[in-house]
């Protein structure tokens, strides 16, 4: 029966202490910590548990000052994180990430994640922007799947966590401005479900699914940001979308994630070449005072370098740069990447014979839900964790900080949400779910406009007009396009079937994606300078007057409001 056909019947209802939305690394860790603190937990994901999201896609680096490879201290990691963030980091969140990171990596080690080892210690690799080898990983390119597998195994062992896959959260339920649960769509049946919870954790990851070329799962359209905004929470630093500079471009490669080349570069020093077969990173290295002239261009600068080469007519045939390993003997490539070499061969790629083509690809979102040092949003009972959180990485994230952030913020949000649930009684009322239930029940069978095509068009618009290089004209045009599409989808959901309805899912996604797209474009238009991942071609260079965060919220009449605030300083206790 559809939600639509189900007009009279009461929806299925579930009660829990803590509801965690999203079962990637952050969500799974939040569920484990909340259960450990004694809370009953529902862990919900629109995909299958532990399969969707970004964590499972991670291939290599997890940064933490473990001091296994070389002496280190979390303060050094913090200094690098703050420098990469170009003045905008929330120092409390960055410090939490760096100080608690080693604990979480060791806990994962105890859960048999399988960190690569050498001479009896965890091996740590050097990554750009870090002052020393700090990044643990699991061979070969298996960090994300290994982290997901280890967390899934812990979920299986843990009591008090109910896992529900294929459940798409439509809205956070509110009672007098307090989060008290959520309303969801159960995808296989098409039925609405209500969830009462004393605390809710948003762990839905980032928004790279808003872009045509991206390295994330299909469900990373930024749902959590829209849920947070509509619930009354604030978003911060939304203009800072990280593009991964060397995403795979050509030849067509299937069965592998497009961000796969970075670890090859770390291990083997692959060369980035332009159409003249000349290395060009040096030409841009002087732009960064922290550069030592080797492979140390941080991601924002490398993206800039490749884009500029292409614009100057020195790009590769598919519109990127060449990445070459031809200077290396075959045996060295084989020993560094083992079975991955065979997967490349199956795609017709022989690294000893010719280079591949790479280009920037949407990879991670620095911005996100604004939280305090307990990961709580401005809405009582509502928490955020992982990539969904904004502020820790400022204007640019260091390589290796994303999985660490998922684990650290997941643990902290889970713990604090459990504490909140223990101290507060349920604020649930059936009335709180009413607006979202009414929305689902109003769905109409429609086959035009094509919702899947609208999603495709929005991704193209974001890539072309709100990509790594922006201008006032492009951003104005993007906002006009977003407004046009918003009126095109209207306020009544489209549907096509009762069970597993991709049209209804696309409509609900568009409702979220269009709001989130706007919440990126509006602060991008306002920020008339270039900083980190936000580059304005019409406003080049840093402007000291812009060393402030921009904060987005929804006003009473559902318009986006923008304000500025000085970056938070001071330290949080881990």
């Amino acid at each position, binding site marked *: 029966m559809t939600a639509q056909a189900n007009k009279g019947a009461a929806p*299925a209802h579930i009660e829990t202490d803590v509801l965690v939305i999203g079962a990637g690394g952050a969500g799974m860790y939040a569920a484990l910590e909340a259960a450990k603190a004694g809370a009953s937990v529902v862990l919900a994901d629109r*995909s*299958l*548990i532990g*399969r*969707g999201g970004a964590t*499972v*896609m991670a291939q290599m680096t997890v940064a933490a000052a473990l001091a296994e490879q070389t002496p280190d201290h979390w303060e050094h990691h913090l200094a690098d994180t703050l420098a990469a963030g170009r003045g905008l980091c929330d120092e409390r969140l960055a410090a939490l990430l760096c100080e608690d990171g080693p604990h979480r990596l060791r806990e994962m080690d105890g859960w048999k994640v399988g960190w690569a080892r050498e001479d009896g210690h965890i091996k740590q690799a050097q990554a750009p922007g870090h002052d020393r080898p700090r990044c643990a990983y699991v061979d070969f390119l298996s960090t*994300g*799947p290994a982290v997901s597998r280890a967390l899934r195994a812990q979920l299986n062992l843990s009591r008090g966590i109910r*896992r*529900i*896959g*294929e*459940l798409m959260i439509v809205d956070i339920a509110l009672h007098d401005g307090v989060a008290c649960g959520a309303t969801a769509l*159960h995808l*296989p*049946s098409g039925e609405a*479900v209500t969830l009462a919870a004393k605390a809710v954790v948003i762990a839905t990851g980032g928004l790279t699914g808003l872009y045509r070329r991206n390295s994330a*799962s*299909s*469900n990373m359209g930024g749902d959590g940001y829209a849920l947070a905004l509509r619930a009354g929470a604030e978003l911060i630093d939304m203009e800072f979308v990280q593009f991964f500079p060397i995403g795979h471009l050509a*030849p*067509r*490669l*299937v*069965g*592998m*994630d*497009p961000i796969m080349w970075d670890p090859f570069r770390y291990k083997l020093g692959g060369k980035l070449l332009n159409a003249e077969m000349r290395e060009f990173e040096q030409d841009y290295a002087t732009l960064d005072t922290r550069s030592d002239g080797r492979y140390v261009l941080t991601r924002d600068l490398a993206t800039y370098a490749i884009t500029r080469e292409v614009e100057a007519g020195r790009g590769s045939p598919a519109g990127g740069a060449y990445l070459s390993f031809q200077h290396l003997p075959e045996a060295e490539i084989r020993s560094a990447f083992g079975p991955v070499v065979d997967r490349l061969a199956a*795609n017709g790629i022989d690294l000893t014979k010719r280079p591949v083509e790479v280009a920037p690809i949407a990879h991670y979102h620095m911005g996100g839900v604004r939280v305090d040092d307990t990961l709580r949003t401005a809405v009582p009972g509502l928490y955020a964790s992982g990539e969904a959180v904004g502020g820790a990485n400022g204007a640019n994230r260091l390589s290796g900080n994303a999985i660490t952030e998922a684990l650290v913020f997941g643990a902290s949000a889970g713990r604090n949400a459990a504490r909140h649930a223990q101290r507060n009684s349920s604020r649930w009322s059936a009335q709180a779910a009413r607006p979202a239930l009414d929305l689902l029940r109003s769905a109409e069978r429609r*086959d035009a406009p*094509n*919702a*899947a*095509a609208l999603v*495709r068009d929005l991704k193209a618009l974001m890539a072309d007009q709100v990509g790594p290089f922006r201008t006032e004209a492009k951003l104005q045009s993007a906002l006009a396009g977003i407004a046009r599409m918003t009126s095109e989808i209207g306020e009544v959901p489209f549907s*096509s*079937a*009762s*069970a*597993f*309805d*991709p*049209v209804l899912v*696309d409509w609900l996604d568009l409702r979220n994606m269009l709001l989130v797209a706007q919440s990126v474009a509006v602060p991008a238009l306002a920020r008339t300078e270039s900083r980190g991942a936000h580059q304005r071609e019409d406003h080049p260079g840093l402007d000291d007057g812009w060393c402030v965060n921009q904060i987005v919220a929804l006003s009473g009449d559902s318009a986006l409001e923008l304000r500025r605030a000085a970056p938070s300083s001071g330290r949080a206790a881990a």
Partner: protein
Amino acid sequence: MKATLAIQRGAPGEVPRVESFEVAFEPGQSVLDGLRALRCEADPSLAFRFSCINANACKECMMLIDGKVDYACTVRLKEGVTALAPLPKKALVRDLVTEIAPPDERLLPRQ
């Protein structure tokens, strides 16, 4: 180049029907690329599972491809007809979607 995808469709209790769609492709593109293009160009109601798109990390796009269980994200599109059907030993949800979630991770236990 053009591929023809002959897709078995329908919900539980319905007589399965095969619908054929033509999709343009470039060498190297996957069956999943073709299915995603079909939703935009021909029929947005076509149901299939996928999450990671290209990495073969989520393992959700498993289906019967020319009679063999395989991943839509790793099998390449080819000229001529490719037959797609839901997994035969799993409960059908709709079109190419079957119930593959572990029973203790489902809201409503199904058979």
